[in-house]
């Protein structure tokens, strides 16, 4: 078991390097020199050069093999790619171009609010999706099942944006059932009040896709031999479903849970923006609007790390549920 975990973690290393490489390519190579942006259109060449040196952009973009061969280790190491790797992996992302605040600090303060939105949405959503999917499989082709199928397809066709706009305007605005927007300054019980409507909307938006997906997974499972055996043995449908099928379906469900996680990122983006929740999604939308390159760069990497973390956790859970996989 331990060796499996270690292998899994080691596997992440080339991926992380790859991600850092991608952010470098995107934001430095393709994106170009930030000096023009920061210094302004009419700065003199001299001022730009000075700024370049200050920010470290006078170094070559890529490591130069020539220097390595010449034995100039220091010169070889002084390039933007390595610099980017160094700052990325130590999570020292510099300062926001718009607000001059330390980006790491911004991320730290934004993580809490985002989590208070995504974690409940995830838990509630997952539970509802699996339960409904189970019920559908339990009563295959019944009116319930068919209605759910239709509703889920309708659900995934409605644009998320429209749902949020309507939800906020009517449930909060017109009818005053929930706060319209905002987030308390200090983390406490009042968070519930502000997070309620966005979470409910997020759950509603993801329900269609999730139910559809898990229904397929569970139905696939019900075709397995052991189910036929159990039925033949006379075990009641309920026992079959909840006793055997669910247990075994859990395996593919867990592995596929990661499919749902990206929705949490999207939800986080739109919900935070509309409801003024100062989380990472809001930070990203704000950075895009304000063309704040260092922030977008940082968030891309951090987002990927979070996602990989979630993948790792699911893999470990999967291993716990089905130890056979560790022998692979």
């Amino acid at each position: 078991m331990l060796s499996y975990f270690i292998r899994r973690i080691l596997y992440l290393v080339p991926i992380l390097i790859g991600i850092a490489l991608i952010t470098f390519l995107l934001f430095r190579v393709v994106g170009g020199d930030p000096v023009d942006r920061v210094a302004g259109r009419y700065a003199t060449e001299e001022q730009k050069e000075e700024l370049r040196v200050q920010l470290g952009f006078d170094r070559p973009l890529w490591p130069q093999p020539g220097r390595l061969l010449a034995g100039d280790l220091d010169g070889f190491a002084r390039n933007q790619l390595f610099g980017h790797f160094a700052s990325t992996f130590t999570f020292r992302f510099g300062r926001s171009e718009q607000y001059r605040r330390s980006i790491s600090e911004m991320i730290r303060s934004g993580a809490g609010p985002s989590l208070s939105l995504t974690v409940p949405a995830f838990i509630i959503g997952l539970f509802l999706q699996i339960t409904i999917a189970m019920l559908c499989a339990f009563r295959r082709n019944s009116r319930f099942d068919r209605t759910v199928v239709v509703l889920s397809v309708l659900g995934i066709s409605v644009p998320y944006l429209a749902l949020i706009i309507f939800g906020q305007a009517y449930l909060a605005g017109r009818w005053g059932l929930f706060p319209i927007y905002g987030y308390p300054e200090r983390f406490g019980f009042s968070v519930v009040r502000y997070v309620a409507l966005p979470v409910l909307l997020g759950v509603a938006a993801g329900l269609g896709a999730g139910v559809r997906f898990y229904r397929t997974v569970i139905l696939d499972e019900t075709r397995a031999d052991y189910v036929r055996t159990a039925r033949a043995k006379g075990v009641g449908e309920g026992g079959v479903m909840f006793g055997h099928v669910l247990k075994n379906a859990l395996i593919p469900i867990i592995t596929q849970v990661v499919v749902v996680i990206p929705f949490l990122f999207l939800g986080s983006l739109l919900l935070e923006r509309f409801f003024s929740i100062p989380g990472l999604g809001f930070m990203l939308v704000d950075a895009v609007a304000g063309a704040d390159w260092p922030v977008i760069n940082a968030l891309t990497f951090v987002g990927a790390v979070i996602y990989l973390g979630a993948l790792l956790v699911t893999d470990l859970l999967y291993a716990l549920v089905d130890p056979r996989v560790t022998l692979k």
Partner: protein
Amino acid sequence: MKLWLILGVVALVLLGLFLSVPFFYRPAGVGEEGVMVRRAALGAKIRGLDPHDIGDTTSAAVGGQIFETLYTYAYLERPYRLLPQLAEDFPEISEDGLTYTIPIRRGVYFADDPAFPGGEGRELTADDFILAWKRMADLNNRSTNYSSIFAGYVEGLDEFRAYTAEVDRVDYDLPVAGLRAPDPHTLEIRLVRPHNFLLYWLAHLPTAPVAREALEKYGEDLVNHPVGTGPFRLVGNYRSNRFSMVRNENFRRELYPDRAAEELAERGLLEDAGREIPFIDRIEWTVIEEAQPLWLAFLAGKIDSSGIPKDNFDQVITTDRELSPAMKARGIRLIKAEDPSIFYYGFNMEDPVVGENRPLRQAMSLAFDRETYIETFLNGRGMVPTGPIPPMIPGFREEKGNPYTRYDLDRARGLLEEAEEIAGGPIPVLRLAMPGTDTTARQMGEYFRIQMSRLGLEIEVDYMTWPKFQDAAKTRSHQIFSLGWLADYPDAQNFLLLFYGPHRSPGPNSSNYSNPEFDALYEEAIALADPEERIPLYHRMEDILIEDCPWIFTTYRVIYALYHDRLQNYYPHDFLYGTMKFQRVRSDLPDSL
């Protein structure tokens, strides 16, 4: 199986929690028992709260509750009258007008802050002003305010400014001849020539004092840690979307004014005369950049006052421009006021394409349909302007008219031909910078683009957040930009200084306009002590600007301010930002919903 049960329990608990919210949630009342809370909203992020760099209304709205200045205006008196605030009295001015001796009020304390020994704010001294103004002069701080306030006036300060460019670390103890403190409560300013607007500037927020201890402790981060003498102090980080202010325990004893203009007295604004202020215990600020949630929040009573977004205007204001009965029934009140402001699209005169092509600028000004703009985006709350001098400012000429602020597409096309000759070919794609990324900003940008495309010009619109926009202005990166200017004091010079050559970026002259003829008139005007005498010169300057068109003058604004009647003592003041200390929020009235 067990996993699912655990998941289920947690999920159902959470779900129950969230679904119960509608039953317990009531839109915000006045908060906890006995605590008076004022709820305000900001439409943009604050750029920074370092006094010398406060240059926009958003930062001023917040900073005005924290910082104070030597002089201030009487809240309720019209016409506007200056009063001593941090100064004990009006300055003693020498015969030649070159020396100002200002007594500093005693018993004024900075708010408590970790920067002070023991965390206790200390008493204000004259040195705190000297430090603040040296910081404004410091080139490394890139203050937009220095050139219009002190440059060329204070003995030794310009030299100090030059010195700051040469050294790595600026020594703020270096004496400046024109700023002295013979004793802790006397401030002496020595000028090299008479400054006819100094008193107005000393009532302007950027001249607020700065405590040395705060500077030493926070350094560059001072912009995030404001320490002032005002009635409120900041708690928490204002960089997030919500932050609060609480009473400054060290605030001196100050009383609500007992004099008011007649029409204000009639509104009941003198009921609290003579009482000790502030009444409010806490201010809750929320930043909400989109119009829709802000409006919803106001209707629900979550914020006390608001403007009216264009999309909600017709539901709220009747055709005779009064508040609808439905709104009145909900306890909402309206104040209409003319605003000494001008909104415009500025050209960066240093840009070769627009700066050196007058017919092009004039053509674009003629191609912009202001009346439709005012109808569509302002619901008629604006007037087609003459020039930079707005109504309510002495020197405003109503009948004068401006040939280029009319809508005349044919004439515009003719001028465009001239422009193309100058340019030696068709005009390239032009760039407009808009200070906002929300939907309304986009619609306004689109409108400009549509108008210019009817003329035959192609426009690219860049949408920027307010901080980014200001930064770009400082570095002269705009080509065409949308902006407005609200008067700092009741003199037209405050508008005309925006065109004075030496005030170019990073000064307030964002269009970097530079015209020797104009500059000469400007210098002549500001040397005159009598405001009446200045006016004819102002008119000549305005005439030059009308012809030269460094701005597309768009509109003068009219304010429609709404507030819940639980908010009392509320009245807009054109120059004063720190008015929350006069306001009161009543808790015995029901919330409007």
